[in-house]
């Protein structure tokens, strides 16, 4: 009876260790995938921002709000918040508004945030063509970041999942 109970406990413990390892691996993979999704959203937001400026000459605060709402996710929230903090009614430039918005919202992609910060420093005081050109340059950079992340995702997400499960299993064997 006692021996059976010990075996059962070991089985449950091993299962838990393997599950924990697996979960850790899946969580790491999800982080990589989440960053990719965030960068994809950012790319969509920049495309939307470019259209708002090129075709509708929408004032930048409003264009940022629309692009943010269309993109969704944390990066969308960050853009929309930047739009609502910037402009004449708030007496604030875009880069200052972005700094404030970043204190409230912190998206999962530091790379997207870095591109956005650089873009914000150039938005708001140049002509129509230059403004669209700055956004296009950011779109190009975001695309290459996305491609990098897609490759990373293919390699690392699977690796993290297997690694998590195998590490859990190895640890369970050692413990047994």
């Amino acid at each position: 009876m006692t021996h059976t109970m010990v075996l059962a406990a070991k089985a449950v413990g091993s299962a838990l260790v393997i599950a924990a390892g697996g979960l850790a691996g899946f969580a790491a993979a999800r982080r990589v995938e989440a960053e990719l999704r965030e960068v994809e959203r950012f790319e969509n937001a920049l495309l939307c921002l470019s259209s708002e400026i090129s075709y509708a000459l929408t004032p930048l605060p409003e264009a940022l709000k629309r692009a943010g709402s269309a993109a969704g996710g944390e990066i969308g929230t960050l853009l929309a918040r930047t739009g609502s903090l910037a402009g004449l009614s708030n007496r604030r430039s875009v880069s200052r508004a972005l700094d404030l918005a970043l204190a409230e919202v912190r998206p999962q992609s530091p790379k997207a945030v870095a591109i956005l910060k650089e873009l914000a420093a150039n938005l708001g005081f140049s002509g129509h063509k230059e403004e669209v050109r700055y956004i296009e340059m950011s779109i190009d950079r975001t695309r290459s970041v996305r491609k990098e992340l897609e490759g990373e995702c293919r390699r690392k997400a699977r690796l993290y999942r297997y690694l998590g499960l195998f590490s859990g299993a190895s640890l369970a064997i050692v413990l047994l």
Partner: protein
Amino acid sequence: MGMLDPLERDILPLLPPRARAPVAGWLTEHPAFARAVSEVRLRAGSPVCVVYQGTDVLLGGKTSPDELKDLIEVVSDCSYYALESEFTGGYVTIPGGHRVGLAGQVAVFPDGSVRIRQVTCVSFRVARAVRGAGERVAKELSDGKGRLRSTLIISPPGCGKTTLLRDLCRISSEGCPEAGIIPSQVGIVDERSEIAACYRGIPQHDLGPRVDVLDKCPKAKGMMMLLRSMSPGVIATDEIGSEEDAEAVATALTAGASVLATCHGESVEQVKRRPYSSWLISSGYFERVVVLSRRRGPGTVEYAGEIGGRSGPS
């Protein structure tokens, strides 16, 4: 607590902190001058300059080029690209109808267009509607059938031409029983956004309920557009002078609308020396004239009545 002056409400909060504090301090020390301030000027490397009652005062430390760059970004609502044509014209209008004039290093492009590349001077011109400014002359300008006669307002710059024109538009739009004016549909062609001072197409001044505004529209084209589309009883426009303007005024009058217009000058005689204004006056297109000066402060009415009467400061 009294209502805030437009300067304190709309302009002061926009100034860079290093310029705002000394201006706010000066306004507190000199409350009598607060409502007389006509301009606030910021120049890179110079103290802020407050213009009032024909004089000025320099206040505080030097404004930096970066502060001016931030200021331009804010007054353009972070949307320079949406206001490029206004910036090319050298000014933008902000809420409250105040004009922000710009100067600095200009770039000339091969197609002949110009753009201020580096803004180094910013001037806030305070817009203050003077309700009632036109009531003292409305009776003189009434045609006895309820409408204002076609009137040319003449004065040197800064004497209140546009302020008077704006109030005459309001009087035509609201009606003024004391002067025998009944409400009319009023069309304003506001080429420089000074009469209605539109911000994003919405007039920032009280012009009454029957006013249609063509904002930033060339005068001659705008008058024709209004005649075709809005059938105004009264058309108002600022600073007429070209042949095209004169022909448009003549067409509007032939179409049965009254025209209220302004013109730079010190007297009717001086205006008559210019070809197209002279043609409009001598052909009898304008029936009344108002001559303004600053003799007893801006808006001093030197003469209001028929064109043949006394027409300049004595």
